[in-house]
């Protein structure tokens, strides 16, 4: 369906209406099937990450960022987020060239870029964490360091999630070179 805004599906409004439909049991057939598959994906120990408020509380500004966060902590994104991404692509094709992909995902093409520092500097927070953790003078534990980074950079995510993201980031990038990164700070 063509929506009034090109990026309707990539907004929290869409996610909220999806969750409302889910709690009322009025999801479309295909959406409820996705929910069924999803129940196979989730381990009991990970259930907290899929509570509704988790999606909103981690400082993610759009479902796309939420998608990235889930991947970064090593989890499959929940059905509502998958639906948001798939529908945004469909919306793009539905508009037959009237809207760009940026407009379908972020509203306008400039918004996602310039002033949105949390978007553009996804790696910065991990590098800052690395430097804080390797500070010879303080010798902080991982949890303390994470708390320090979160308050300093005014991040809106919890310590546990941040640490999970950080560990995966480190694993992915391999050995980080402290002297290289320190030059940035």
């Amino acid at each position, binding site marked *: 369906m063509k929506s009034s805004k090109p990026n309707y599906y990539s907004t929290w409004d869409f996610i909220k209406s999806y969750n409302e439909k889910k709690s009322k049991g009025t999801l479309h057939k295909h959406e409820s099937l996705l929910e069924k*598959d999803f129940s196979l*994906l989730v381990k009991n120990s990970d259930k907290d990450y899929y509570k509704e408020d988790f999606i909103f509380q981690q400082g993610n500004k759009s479902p796309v960022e939420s998608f990235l966060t889930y991947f970064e902590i090593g989890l499959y994104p929940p059905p509502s987020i998958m639906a948001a991404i798939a529908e945004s692509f469909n919306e793009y094709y539905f508009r037959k060239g009237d809207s760009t992909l940026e407009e379908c995902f972020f509203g306008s093409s400039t918004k996602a870029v310039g002033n949105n520092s949390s978007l553009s500097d996804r790696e910065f927070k991990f590098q800052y964490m690395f430097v804080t953790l390797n500070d010879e003078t303080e010798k902080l534990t991982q949890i303390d360091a994470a708390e320090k980074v979160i308050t300093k950079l005014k991040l809106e995510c919890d310590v546990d999630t941040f640490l999970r993201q950080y560990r995966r980031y480190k694993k992915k990038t391999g050995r980080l070179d402290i002297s290289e990164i320190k030059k940035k700070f």
Partner: protein
Amino acid sequence: MTLDTPEKIKAFLLQNPKSTYINEYGEEYTLKNDELTIKSLPYNSWKYVDNIRDRMIKEANKNTDYFDMECVWNRINDSDDYQLDRLDRSAETPLQDFIYTSEFEMYPKPEIIIFLYNCFNRYFYMKGEESLEDIFFGKSQKGIGNQAAKKSRLEAVKHLSMIIQMEKQGIGFNRSEIKRTDLVLAEEVIEMMKLSIDPESLLRKYRRHIKGK
């Protein structure tokens, strides 16, 4: 197989002259006149996604970046009603595959999730120097319009080609004796698909399409 230095890659390619080597970042190495050339594979290509999948399967037992996704995937794919063919290539591109699986009420394969992640991550990393369309569909050519416009025009041409065939053979919705001209049919397609191009140019595209076949 992981080859971490250019020398090792060159040695491997010298031993296997017809093959190429793709590293974990999706860079393809080929040997031309004993010179190593590097090309970044486009994200939205099966070659790129196949490379991710092969690495995932190989590294499934090691605790690597792909480890979690592969474990989770095995859990879902083991259930009775979910046997997705991992090597299915019926979709033209990985992105199309993602859209199809979501239409068929299924979770996409993990390599498709990684592919989407890499695309969006690259977009944020480039801070606006590359548009999302450049990342997903390659650099856009001037005058063609974006991918959605291109796809809808191609669909229009395909549709026109179909109804012209039907008209010629006297089947379809036209019950009168008089055959409609191609131009009238083109107008009909444009109206039906609500396109903003003129019938002449659609017809020209259609003729070019036929010639190209």
